[in-house]
């Protein structure tokens, strides 16, 4: 059961995904400019922001994409800096990235892909037991209303937008991360798919998972209700608040925030 919280908890704690004064560049261009954010395990935080604010850059940088160069700051997973780790090691440490545009991997079946990911988490030389694996996978697929035929199909190949996003949540359910960053999971979804995907995420909510939802629209937050909402503009968090902040953004647009920060007293 998830406890409902009053005010968000900003205290430093070990069980969190903590981003401190992060600077990220692509090429010569600095996109993330001193971003600080902490997602305690068990909470759902949403980052909203206009296009170009650096939301997707943040998720790729946390995941360790080689094109996104961290020039300063820290990303701590339960207290350990993960910025020195390769992307696969970050994932095995408990990080999960749901992609805005999940990649197609031709010729590799969904089942094989998931097995490889799970086997990578087994002790050296051990593999996940096949029967158990399929039972688990089918159970999670049922929750996401995915047909069994998806196991044999190539990863994301020929999947609709909604199917790809469901597949991301399936992977998340199977890999059981400690922290998940969901990048624009709502983009390209019709209302039915949004409902299914959100239900999938909500089912995974709990004290052992911290979630960072990245979204452009408030709509997603009707389905996955966040504990904390952050507003990101030009590579920084400019405002944080409760879920009502999302509503306010929806009503007034991002401009009112931008207006707020034109005279930045960042104190």
């Amino acid at each position, binding site marked *: 059961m998830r406890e409902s919280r009053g005010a968000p908890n900003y205290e430093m704690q070990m069980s969190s995904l903590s981003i401190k004064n992060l600077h990220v560049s692509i090429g010569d261009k600095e996109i993330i400019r001193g971003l600080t954010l902490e997602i305690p395990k068990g909470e759902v935080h949403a980052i909203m922001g206009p296009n170009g604010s650096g939301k997707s850059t943040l998720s790729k940088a946390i995941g360790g994409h*080689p094109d996104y160069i961290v020039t300063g700051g820290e990303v701590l997973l339960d207290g350990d800096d993960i910025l020195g780790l390769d992307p696969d090691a970050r*994932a095995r440490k408990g990080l999960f990235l749901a*992609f805005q545009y999940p990649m197609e991997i031709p*010729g*590799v079946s969904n089942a094989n892909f998931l097995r490889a990911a799970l086997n*990578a988490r087994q002790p050296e030389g051990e593999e996940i037991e096949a029967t158990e694996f399929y039972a688990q996978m089918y159970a999670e697929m049922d929750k996401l209303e995915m047909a069994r035929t998806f196991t044999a199909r190539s990863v994301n190949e020929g999947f609709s937008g909604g199917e790809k996003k469901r597949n991301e949540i399936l992977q998340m359910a199977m*890999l059981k991360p400690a922290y998940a960053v969901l990048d624009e999971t709502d983009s390209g979804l019709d209302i039915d798919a949004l409902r299914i995907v959100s239900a999938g995420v909500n089912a995974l909510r709990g004290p052992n998972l911290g979630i960072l939802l990245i979204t452009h629209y408030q709509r997603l937050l009707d389905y996955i209700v966040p504990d904390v909402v952050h507003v990101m503009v030009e590579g920084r968090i400019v405002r944080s608040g409760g879920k009502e902040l999302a509503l306010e953004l929806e009503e007034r647009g991002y401009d009112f925030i931008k207006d707020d920060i034109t005279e930045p007293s960042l104190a």
Partner: protein
Amino acid sequence: MNPAILESEEVLTTNAASILSAGPVSPEQAEAWEKFTALPMPVRTDEAWRFANVKDLDLGGYVPAQPVDDATRDELLTRSMGLASIAGRMVFANDQLLVQETLGDSLRQKGVIWLPLDQAAAENPELFRKHFMREEAILGGQKFAALHASQVRAGTFLYVPRGVEIDLPIEAFHWEHGANGSVFPHTLIIAEDMAKVTLIDYYESAVPDAPALACAVNDLWLGAGASVTYVCVQNWSRKAHSFQLNSTVVGRDAHSKSLFAQLGGRHVRSESISHLRGQGGRSDMLAVTVAEGAQEVDARTFQIHEVPNTQSDLLYKNSLDDTARTIFAGLIRVDPGAHRTDAYQKVRNLLLSDEAEANSAPGLEIEADDVRCTHGATSGQIEQEELFYLLSRGIPKKDAQRLIVFGFLNEVIERLGNEPVQEKLRELVRARFSE
């Protein structure tokens, strides 16, 4: 009377000396031997050997492979791991038949003939003569076709009469064992009208890094409406010279599918020709290559549309690592009058190393109207975004790369449309990766 195959005593004679210095004895084989010695070795300037490292073709030092001893025989039989469910199986080692698991009585009663080549030649001389090495090697391998014809002493002969469908695959294992040995596997499939069959050849070396010469021929002949699936897994020693000459004759409304998996060998030359000879005929020509180290895999193909309304679809995929080289030279030919031809040819190279080299030379010769011919060759590396996606799921880089390469090749394998055979091929490709 055996028209073309060495009889057992003659084998002994031939075995007594190097294949490259002692001639064979049957008249046909003597003639072939003469042809072999008369034809020049390929040189760099031969168009049919363009890109190939012809200096590496020195065949001196190879000797006829000797019969294996009992212990080796038992070992090789144990290692002949094919599919769980098959219709029949033969195992050869050093061109000597070790085991023949015959087809069931019902198939034999229907007239199916599945015999070692020499026995088939002796028992069905007319049928044998009609089909044995009837299609000329016209892609540069004439000399090696002659070598094969002069030396062939083992292989499989499969005749499927009109209307007979064999549901389960038939398998043949060809083992090569010993240093500097040479083997000459042969496969001849004759599928009469409306017949249907799947045959898998496994070419294997007992020792993965002993020098060897393999010079194989496989010919498929499809009558009207026949359906043949032929798979050949070439997994010779990493120090082997492998020559392989394939021809497929596709009759009216017949459908041939062939898949060559090139996993072994040091210098591999494969020539594959489809003759679309009957209207409505279709040939799917598939190949997957895993080339590593200093391997060279040289594939030449020919899609010949001889009559109107035929289809051919070629898909060759190569994965190249280290300093490996691949060559693909493929020609689509549409004969005069072969209207409404639909021919497709695609080669894809996945380069895993900066030093690997993929050469592609597709070509078209069209002498008819209203044809659709498409060809293309692409070379590329693993997509960084695909790799990152797998890494982000916790899959270590090496495994992620293998998975992507596996998927790349698996797309060809899946075109076979036979799940147990596909699974076997996947298993062999995976085993190759984990070496």
